[in-house]
């Protein structure tokens, strides 16, 4: 007998709905060549299967879902993505205005952690708290990483200009 009902799925869908946009943005940033929507669906499936493990006393739904999404995005970017796809958001560099070319190039020269912080906070528009969840670090570390990233970018862009 199956106790998982349509109402359960409706409840879950309602529960994830407010977070879908952030999940999609994060997927697009962390795995830009992969299928963003597929990552989100995979993340939702994972979250559904593991929903009993969610403990609201230990973090927000947003942080939990974004962590799941980041995990799926990382897998997609690393080895689960068989077929490269066009980017969803970033146009080819050659079509960008000069200032954006400089920024893109500068972003590529950040460290992994700095880049991740920038991707989450500035592009995916995650909060500091959610960025910390994705980065597996404290909020203070996120802030300091962002400071470091901006310092590095400032130097890079000044040199460029």
């Amino acid at each position: 007998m199956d106790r998982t009902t349509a109402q359960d799925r409706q409840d879950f869908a309602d529960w994830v709905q407010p977070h879908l946009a952030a999940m999609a943005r994060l997927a697009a940033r962390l795995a830009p060549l992969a299928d963003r929507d597929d990552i989100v669906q995979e993340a939702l499936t994972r979250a559904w299967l593991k929903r009993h493990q969610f403990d609201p006393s230990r973090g927000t739904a947003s942080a939990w879902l974004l962590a799941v999404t980041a995990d799926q995005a990382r897998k997609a970017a690393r080895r689960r993505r068989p077929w490269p796809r066009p980017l969803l958001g970033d146009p080819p560099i050659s079509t960008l205005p000069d200032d954006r070319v400089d920024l893109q190039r500068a972003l590529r020269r950040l460290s992994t952690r700095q880049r991740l912080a920038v991707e989450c906070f500035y592009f995916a528009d995650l909060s500091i708290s959610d960025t910390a969840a994705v980065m597996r670090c404290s909020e203070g570390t996120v802030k300091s990483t962002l400071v470091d990233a901006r310092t590095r970018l400032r130097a890079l862009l000044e040199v460029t200009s």
Partner: protein
Amino acid sequence: MTDEIHDVLDQAGRRWRATQPDPPEPDRSRWEPGRSAPRLPRRGPLVAVAGSTLVAVGLITTIATPWAWWPWRSDRGGEGQVVVTAAAPTPAPAEVLLVREGDIVQASGTVLAEPGRAVRFCAPAVTFMPARPSVDPRIPDCTYSVPVTGVDPNHLAMTAVPPGVWFGKARLRGVWRAGTLHVTQQAAPDPENLSMLSDNTSDDASDDPPCPAPAGGWPVTEPADGKALHQYMEEEHADQFRRPRVSYPGRRADGKATGGGAGGGSTPGAGAVEVLVIEVVKGDVEAARKALRERYSGNLCVVSRPGALSLADERARHGAVQATLGTLMRDGANGIYSSGYDPEREVVEVELVMVTPQLYEHFTRIGLDMLRLNPWLRPMR
């Protein structure tokens, strides 16, 4: 305080977000019990979940498997202090995992006592997220559980809610007899694996492709169109190629640079150096490389991998296993709560309560070499 770089990034982020399409609507069909993610045979780990029910046998597990993830970090005691479970059991040959009548077994989980019901041993720490009036959210989920006797409640970190209900975590060892765990030893529970993002792969491993880098290193390329490649491999020559993967030269599997790659290592994200690795399991590698290159303009690494499962093999194997496994999973009494295809190991990983003799027979018929069993309750050999 004004920060020009902050403003630049903020504006760049806004511009990018403005280009983004709406997020997808959740595909609820993927959440139906016993159903796998429909496209997974082509995309990655198949994940299916059993039609859950309160059954005499059946546990929810929290064991760390190569696929299990624990999206909760520890209470922060410091940066990077992630608690890793001490009981991350390595899947063993199936027969070693078989639980017979009278065996000593062991697991770490939650003991739950409710009025009018046998005390149960179930997974730790769970609440159902959306509030459901029929379920007290303070009571941990115990969809899969085994009856248990002999638990000393005085040695549990107990929580009592509401009146008459108590639960607490413990590592229990005891005798498995007549469908019940008779406890002989009780200890503190295993620390939970609280890694936020770990997928338990070897993060120290290099992610370099198995091909020498061209002179000057692997170039950063614009995104390549993979449709023609996909068509060629997946639709026309599925028996010739293994599932492709993307490699990031100079980067460890955890995303940190090894310092050995071109440009000091790449990062997943826009502008990362990526190499599509394709393994040829059958036929002439040079001819395959030429055919693939004609269809793909990005970085490509084509190598020979004779004997590995091809895309067609993988599809057939997975389909055969999943047909039988799906039937077993739909019966909650079997205690199988998830399964998924692991393309790295070329097996279907099965997470379940315990390997009973009945299940062992089923698994044998499926083919034990096609499965990687990961039970929660394990015999002590």
